[in-house]
């Protein structure tokens, strides 16, 4: 049984149809990357999967349970998904440690002691332990994103969703974050990642889902997608992506 199954997902905003029947599957332990031109609906797709955006029609099945039916427990669903935002979205009034422990204490209902221990452990894993008392405004972009990843990871989610995690970062910081994502990849964390970082797509994924104008054009491994693909839209896209090496 797949972890996530998406069948014919459609999303319409007012008069614009952003997703026109998307199908995808994610199994436990897999890492898939979603790529495509601007406006293809990548972020909308991700946000439909944890119901931050309400799908117009179609089916999403998460761990065997259909979450697109009415009356679904949205909170419970979201507690099992770790979401990482493009612009970090750290809670600006809390330091790194508190950013991580807030969810642990209030959602996972851990005691302060347990939450702190867990937070310390997770922060150590990504090398952010020394920054635990800093506030978001005092961190660099790469540090902020790493903190955001820890905040999501510490909740022990079943899957991690990353929405353009490196798009707001300069190359050096992007590398910091990519190395963390790589670590998670090697530890078999299930991930779905929207990105236009070709390096990430090539080396840190099991397959790439190419989305264009609301439909999945192709799903394949990087080697076959990036170079001289028969589909002109795909070929055009990857020609314009710089530095595919």
């Amino acid at each position, binding site marked *: 049984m797949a972890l996530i199954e998406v069948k014919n997902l459609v999303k319409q905003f007012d008069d614009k149809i952003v997703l026109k029947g998307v199908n995808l599957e994610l199994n436990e332990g897999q890492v898939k990357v979603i790529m495509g031109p601007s406006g293809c609906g990548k972020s909308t797709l991700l946000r439909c999967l944890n119901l931050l955006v309400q799908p117009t029609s179609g089916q999403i099945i998460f761990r065997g349970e259909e979450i697109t039916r009415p009356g679904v427990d949205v909170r419970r*669903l979201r507690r099992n998904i770790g*979401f990482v*935002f493009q612009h970090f*979205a750290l*809670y600006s*009034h809390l330091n790194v440690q508190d950013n991580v422990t*807030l969810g642990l204490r*209030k959602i996972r209902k851990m005691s302060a002691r347990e939450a702190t221990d867990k937070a310390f452990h997770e922060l150590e894993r990504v090398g952010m332990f020394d920054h635990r008392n800093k506030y978001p405004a005092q961190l660099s972009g790469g540090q902020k994103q790493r903190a955001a990843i820890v905040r999501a990871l510490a909740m022990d989610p079943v899957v991690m969703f990353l929405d353009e995690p490196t798009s707001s970062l300069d190359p050096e910081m992007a590398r910091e974050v990519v190395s963390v994502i790589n670590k998670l990849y090697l530890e078999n964390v299930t991930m779905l990642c929207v990105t236009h970082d070709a390096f990430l797509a090539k080396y840190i994924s099991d397959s790439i889902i190419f989305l264009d104008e609301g439909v999945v054009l192709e799903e394949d491994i990087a080697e076959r997608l990036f170079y001289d693909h028969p589909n002109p839209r795909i070929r055009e896209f990857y020609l314009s992506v710089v530095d595919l090496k």
Partner: protein
Amino acid sequence: MTFWNILRVLASGAGFTILVTVACTATGLLIGLVTAMLSRLHWRPVEIMIAAYTYTFRGIPVLVLLFIVFFGLPIVGIRVSPFLSMILSLGLISGAYLSEIFRGAMNSVRREEILAAEAMGMTRVQSFLYIVLPQMVRFSIPGMINEFTSVLKYSPFAYTVGIPEIMKEAMGLAAVTLRGLEIYLAVGIIYFIIYRMFCMLFATLEKRYRIPGLSAD
């Protein structure tokens, strides 16, 4: 009567001044907070009522409202104590200003952080309590301090309804000694001292709870 004696007599009214100021500010804070939270529900009728309230109570002079409450209401059968009159006038007006301040502060909380809280699985109540409220309060601090000093500066109106605060003591003294210049100078000094004391108090509190990088832009 020496200047020092004048100060001593006036200072006895200071307690009432501070009491009235604190009570009216507290009322204002409560109203401001409640209206801010209500406006989050995005119910049209409620939004209209809040807008009407803030417009009306920021457009009417404090003295006029005070007189409506204290002298006017008894005519239609409602007796109001002097203290309550101050709260229902200065307090309600202060609430209108604080309502605007709090709502502005609430809208300054970054949408993305609230989204992150929801993505984590927090309920709307939780995201309000742990994300919106702490930031909203911090953003409102300059406005709250401003409003407090404003209430302090309208508190002398309390003498018109008989509350024995500084101004009332002063007028009594002036009537007897006819040394208006010194007396009102002393009054000014006492108010100024109270003002500075509260400024220092707020500055210390603000420093204690300041968070690096947290500002409302």
